[in-house]
């Protein structure tokens, strides 16, 4: 474009004339692959092999993919416009949404209450003994390894179908997370106030009560709010396995192909989640502000 590109510029001509000499002087610069690129290539190759294995094992056939995409596009057209069906059904959906929120709230709060002592036991500077700390940590890790949906299934078979199983599911899956977060917050607590309490003759319990808790309580409250926020999402789906909330209705509508109701429910869920996000992040900001 520049006019210079059409006829070889002196720089280009000179460089082309000296290619063999340049090659001899800088062999590394002419290698297709530098050492870093070779590592990247090896990773790429490994990743691609694994991809191939996955495509083969999981039977991901292009034909099936295409046919499914066609169906999916059709479903999407059927979803518009969102429509709950009837007024009674709409009220049912709203009630299920309220139940979802209630499950999230109860589950989160119960989990926080139960996780507090566990978190203390799992924190280096508050535990009774290193062994207790180790046991508490492994217990929390194990609980966290199980998804809320699995807990929901288990609780359904223990206490039966319904929101109570959902509350227990949210509670158990959160105990692990809260325990870990709490213990980290307690370990990160500033040492100076604690030393102050001990220096004034306070006992170990007094150190925790006056040296640690005042510092970490706001942090913990923030974490509780944050998890409540994420639990409103989780509690929308535990109904899929019968543990109460909107998930049951949603799964039913999907299975009976009532696409307009499906899109209506999803829309309402998105609105509810967004509202809770707003509320909780505002509260958390207030907490952080003092």
């Amino acid at each position: 474009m520049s006019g210079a590109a059409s006829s070889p510029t002196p720089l280009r001509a000179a460089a082309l004339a000296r290619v063999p000499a340049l090659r001899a002087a800088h062999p590394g610069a002419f290698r297709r692959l530098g050492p870093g690129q070779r590592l990247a290539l090896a990773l790429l190759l490994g990743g691609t092999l694994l991809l191939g294995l996955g495509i083969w094992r999981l039977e991901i056939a292009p034909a099936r993919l295409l046919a499914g995409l066609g169906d999916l596009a059709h479903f999407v057209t059927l979803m518009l416009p969102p429509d709950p069906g009837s007024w009674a059904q709409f009220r049912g959906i709203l009630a299920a949404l309220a139940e979802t929120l209630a499950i999230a709230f109860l589950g989160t709060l119960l989990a926080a209450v139960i996780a507090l002592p566990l978190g203390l036991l799992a924190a280096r500077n508050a535990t009774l003994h290193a062994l207790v700390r180790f046991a508490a940590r492994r217990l929390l890790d194990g609980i966290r390894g199980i998804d809320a949906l699995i807990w929901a299934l288990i609780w359904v078979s223990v206490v039966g179908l319904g929101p109570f199983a959902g509350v227990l599911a949210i509670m158990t899956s959160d105990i692990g997370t809260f325990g870990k977060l709490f213990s980290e917050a307690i370990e990160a607590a500033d040492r100076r106030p604690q030393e102050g309490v001990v220096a004034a003759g306070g006992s170990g319990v007094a150190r925790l009560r006056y040296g640690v808790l005042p510092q970490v309580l706001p942090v913990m409250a923030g974490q509780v709010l944050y998890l409540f926020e994420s639990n409103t999402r989780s509690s929308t789906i535990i109904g899929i396995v019968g543990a109460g909330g909107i998930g049951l209705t949603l799964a039913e509508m999907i299975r009976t192909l009532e696409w307009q109701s499906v899109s209506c429910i999803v829309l309402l869920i998105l609105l509810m989640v967004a509202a809770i996000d707003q509320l909780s992040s505002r509260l958390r900001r207030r907490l952080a502000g003092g």
Partner: protein
Amino acid sequence: MSHGGARPQREAEARLAPLAGAWRSHRRQRRRRALLAAGLVLALLWLAAWVAQVDPRLIWSKGGNVFGYFDRLLTLEGGAEAGARVWHDPAEWFWGWRRWLRLLGDTLLMAYLGTLFGALGGLLGGLLAAGNIGPGRALRWTVTRGLEVCRTVPDIVFALVFVIAFGLGPLPGVLALTIHTLGALGKQVTELVENVDMRPVEGVVATGAAWPQMAGFAVVPQVLPGFLGYALLRFEINVRSAAVLGFVGAGGIGQDLIEAIRKFYYNDVAALLVLIILTVVLIDAVTSRLRFRLLEGHAA
């Protein structure tokens, strides 16, 4: 002597009185606010319990079931040592290990594929949605909204729909994980891109490079370590999710787990849970080490 000491004390008290009063009123105010908050939480608790029909008495009546259930999970139901704890006869306990390991492998592959496709899409989406380098306002708005939907709708809801469109099996599971990963990583990449150093970007644009080359050479090198870290974290999350997608028929170990729980095959439930927990903990350990190395390499 005595009245000589009393006077300064009385004076001190007189001087301190307003301070003590202020402190008391401050404390009262704080206490009132704390009480108010506690009252609010209690009221909400009561409301929530009413809405969710949680009857505290239920806890007492069902409390026994809980221990009974976990007791049965860990008691052998068949074999030579029936009635003993499961670990006395691991061969009987893990009788289906071949099938379970295969399903576990499939679960990991689902998580891998979902993370891989989702990460590639998320990288592209994040580049397109970033305010500082995005190629156009309309495109940016569309991509941002799309990413939002992808990340807010839970993956299992996508799986439910995909199972109907694509049929039962791991394919809908992989797609559901892909969509959710795309949304979550897309948001994170957007934030990474919006914080890059713009000088290299200008340097590359000034050479006459087009958008893809600018993104590839000036932006991607800057966001790569952060992006890989997020992708690894997402893989960890996806392994957990993939384990339950089978609940709705979207492949992986979840299909056996839901069957075992529904049909009360107690020992199988325990075995599958142990396998899942071990896998998740292992993946956690590996990815967190990798992420640490990545951060270190970036700092060096």
